[in-house]
């Protein structure tokens, strides 16, 4: 399997940390699935939280450190290159990592990436030593530009963030895999079910990044475990070299030696 800036996780599920019923349930989901990479963000703390020991952000950071997982900070909600670059710098200082999940959002209904701004921000950050994980589309021309800008990983969406629709454009994602055979590819966003994640891994993807499908499930920890299993199965299926689909039947039981009984 391909590595992410030199890091080769055993577990190919990257898990978002938002929207869980409680921090304890988030921790259960991480532990039960064996996740090694989680995403995080930077936000203003509410007034009553900002001082004292009870700051929600401080407690969250303590929890992540206790879990011992690697953090992939994001620039979620940024709509301009300037916002995204500034947020990335702030995240690098707080989280102590050069990794950044780069989001530059171009449209609010679909949260579709602004790929023009994304390429510009990716170049600025890569030149500044960041290891950029760009949230992009399955457009292979854009993918090429992102690689030219210094990215060594691409993260095309499966479907709009939080939609749970699965892989909207299987053809495009398969084409992307074939076009960039040596680049680590992560399906990021839109996954709703473990079968969606398995499907992406069967296409040869290297990891799946998801959040809502686990966090908003009735039992997040169980769902996280289900995703981890599906991703492992999909990964093994890809390694096992699946058969090509065909239109007509091909008998699996040998015809030779069959008795004539009619």
């Amino acid at each position: 399997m391909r590595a992410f800036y030199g890091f080769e996780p055993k577990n190919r599920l990257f898990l978002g940390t938002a929207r869980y019923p409680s921090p304890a349930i988030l921790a259960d989901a991480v532990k039960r699935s064996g996740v090694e990479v989680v995403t995080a963000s930077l936000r203003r703390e509410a007034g009553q939280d900002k001082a004292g020991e009870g700051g929600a952000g401080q407690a969250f950071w303590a929890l992540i450190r206790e879990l011992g997982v690697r953090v992939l900070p994001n620039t979620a909600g940024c709509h301009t290159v300037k916002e995204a670059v500034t947020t990335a710098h702030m995240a690098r200082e707080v989280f102590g990592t050069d990794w950044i999940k780069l989001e530059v959002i171009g449209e609010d209904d679909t949260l579709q990436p602004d790929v023009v701004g994304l390429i510009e921000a990716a170049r600025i950050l890569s030149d500044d030593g960041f290891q950029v994980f760009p949230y992009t589309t399955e457009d292979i021309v854009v993918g090429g530009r992102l690689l030219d800008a210094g990215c060594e990983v691409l993260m095309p969406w499966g479907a709009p963030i939080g939609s749970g629709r699965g892989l909207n454009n299987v053809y495009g994602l398969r084409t992307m895999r074939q076009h960039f055979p040596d680049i680590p590819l992560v399906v990021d966003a839109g996954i709703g079910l473990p079968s969606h994640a398995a499907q992406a891994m069967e296409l040869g993807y290297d990891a799946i990044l998801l959040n809502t499908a686990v966090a908003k499930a009735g039992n997040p920890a169980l769902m996280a475990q289900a995703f981890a299993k599906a991703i492992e199965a999909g990964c093994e299926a890809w390694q096992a070299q699946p058969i090509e689909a065909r239109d007509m039947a091909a008998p699996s039981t040998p015809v030779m030696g069959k008795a004539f009984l009619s």
Partner: protein
Amino acid sequence: MTLLLNGEPQEVAAATLADALAELGYDGKIVATAVNGDFVAARRREACQLAEGDRVEILAPMQGG
């Protein structure tokens, strides 16, 4: 002076970003800062002079997808 702290008006006596953070109870907290849209690294907060109406962002680690 009055700052726009995380989008809200905030009176502070401090003249630098480092002193403002201490005055506002952020001592020892893991936070990142920006002034008027530009990142200010922790090591530069003492030298960062604030002015009336500056937009100061103080951000903390938070859940994210």
